[in-house]
């Protein structure tokens, strides 16, 4: 007789645990440096403009400060509420992380890998470029895409450097005539539909260039 009641209690607790964790939260986004990314700044400017139109006068920096404070308080309260369910999430795999495409990255990056051979640089791998697809089988796989996506964001510099080391190890093996390899990210503002139709090209800036010497790796 007691089992149906225990089951009822456990199922109710399960529903409570997963629902609370699925409520919107800026998890993974509580890094002030990340908020300085132009994509985030554009979002703040858009919402500040809209609020201004509704009669709520706030500048983008003021909006950022208020949102930051609210988010910090909210995350603190959320952590307190969710703490008892922590082991259930961790060991039963009931994490609820559904922040999928919450905001399109307006300033995306494209990974470039170049090798230095016979005194000049040449591209070996360019993300989504079928002409330059060295290591493409690995780098284009769905899990590697997630890792590469993060390299352009603040906080992943150390992983990016290790990735460059990993690339250098493979370059030393695959390009016997090369003496250096370079990893960098092409960062650009995505063109609007109007700009694409006008035939404009994105203005690309190469950021986070990292070079590795190949001698000693063979």
């Amino acid at each position, binding site marked *: 007789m007691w089992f149906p009641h225990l089951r009822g209690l456990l199922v109710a607790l399960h529903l409570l645990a997963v629902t609370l964790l699925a409520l919107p939260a800026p998890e993974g986004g509580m890094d002030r440096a990340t908020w300085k990314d132009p994509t985030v700044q554009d979002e703040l400017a858009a919402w500040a403009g809209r609020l201004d139109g509704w009669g709520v006068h706030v500048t983008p920096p003021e909006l950022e400060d208020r949102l930051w404070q609210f988010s910090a308080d909210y995350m603190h309260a959320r952590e307190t509420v969710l703490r008892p369910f922590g082991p259930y999430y961790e060991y039963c795999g009931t994490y609820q992380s559904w922040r999928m495409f919450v*905001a399109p990255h307006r300033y995306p990056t494209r990974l470039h890998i170049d090798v230095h051979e016979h005194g000049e640089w040449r591209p070996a791998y360019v993300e989504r470029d079928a002409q330059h697809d060295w290591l493409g089988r690995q780098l284009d796989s769905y899990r590697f895409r997630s890792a590469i996506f993060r390299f352009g964001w603040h906080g992943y510099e150390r992983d990016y450097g290790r990735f460059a080391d990993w690339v250098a190890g493979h370059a030393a093996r695959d390009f016997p005539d090369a003496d250096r390899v370079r990893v960098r990210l092409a960062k650009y503002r995505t063109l609007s539909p109007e700009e694409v139709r006008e035939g404009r090209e994105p203005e690309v800036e190469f950021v986070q260039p990292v070079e590795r010497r190949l001698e000693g790796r063979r």
Partner: protein
Amino acid sequence: MSGAAPPGPSGGLRPPARPGPPAHPNPWARWVAFLDRREPGTSLALFRIAVGLCLLYAVSSVVWSGALPALWLNPADGGYTVVGRPWLFRQLGGVTPAAVWAVTGVCLAAALLLVVGLAGRLAALVALQTYLALTGLNPDASGSYDGVFTNALWLLVLASSTATLSLGCRLRTGRWASDRPATAWPRYLVIYQLVLIYCSTGLHKLSACWTPVGGYSALYYTLQQPTWQRWDMSWLAWAYPLTQAATALTWFWEVSSPLLLLALWYRATRDRPGRLRALFNRLNFRRWFVAVGVAMHLTVFAFMEVGPFTWITLAFYVCLYHPNEWREWWQHLADWLARRSATPGKPDS
């Protein structure tokens, strides 16, 4: 305890047939009685098979691409970054190539057991723990699909998913299919989890681009991100209004997904009065929900490389249908195939 649901018109959350046990007076008693319902295990069996197949694809494709050492091993062993130490690997003595490959093999074997339907709960538990261990090695190389997998596997641990359409059923009864009833509440939890995923992701979409403020431009710009696209998508500039309509539809559909729960309840209690109930049933809300959802996921699959996300999420859809519906469709298909195979052989009259 209520018995298996009788055959006939069916819905996603079928209540006990009327006349049945008397209505319970208080909410807790109704809740306990709701969780006590039983039904044939067909929907959960199909869910198990679909999850097993998706898991086979998700893990074997990492192996097949040659990315496993890079993603899940330490730099000294061929990895690109220092990996974590999930509890399973701590128990195994650390993250060594032998341990990672062994856990990968066990995960694939457990996925295969799920597909064939042997050792149901144990196979799901082993698949869950090995998958958690593998994906916990490098959280940077993970995505929302991992959460969909682990939630699905945990629900399979709770469910009696090998009651039918399984090798276990074959060994137990001598037949591949069985009418043995299983508890229905795990199927309800699968449905709730699906709605939670959609509603939560919709509520997280606070970017101006998902709203009129940003001109409903989210899908256009998302599809321009090189990380996820399969090929160049700049041609969408000439189909921009379509992407705007799809953005608005996607956001509205996700945020309003809890209506599916209401629709399934109305469908299951269609003999009760109420204009809203009648409207939902006349519209066949579930059919529209599934049509939009399948179209959205297949479009994502066509244009973007998001790993197993499309397929593992669609696996949840099988639980939107009552086991009797699956059985009726199977019977229709079998009858149709029988008629088709009989027709050419008929002598001319």
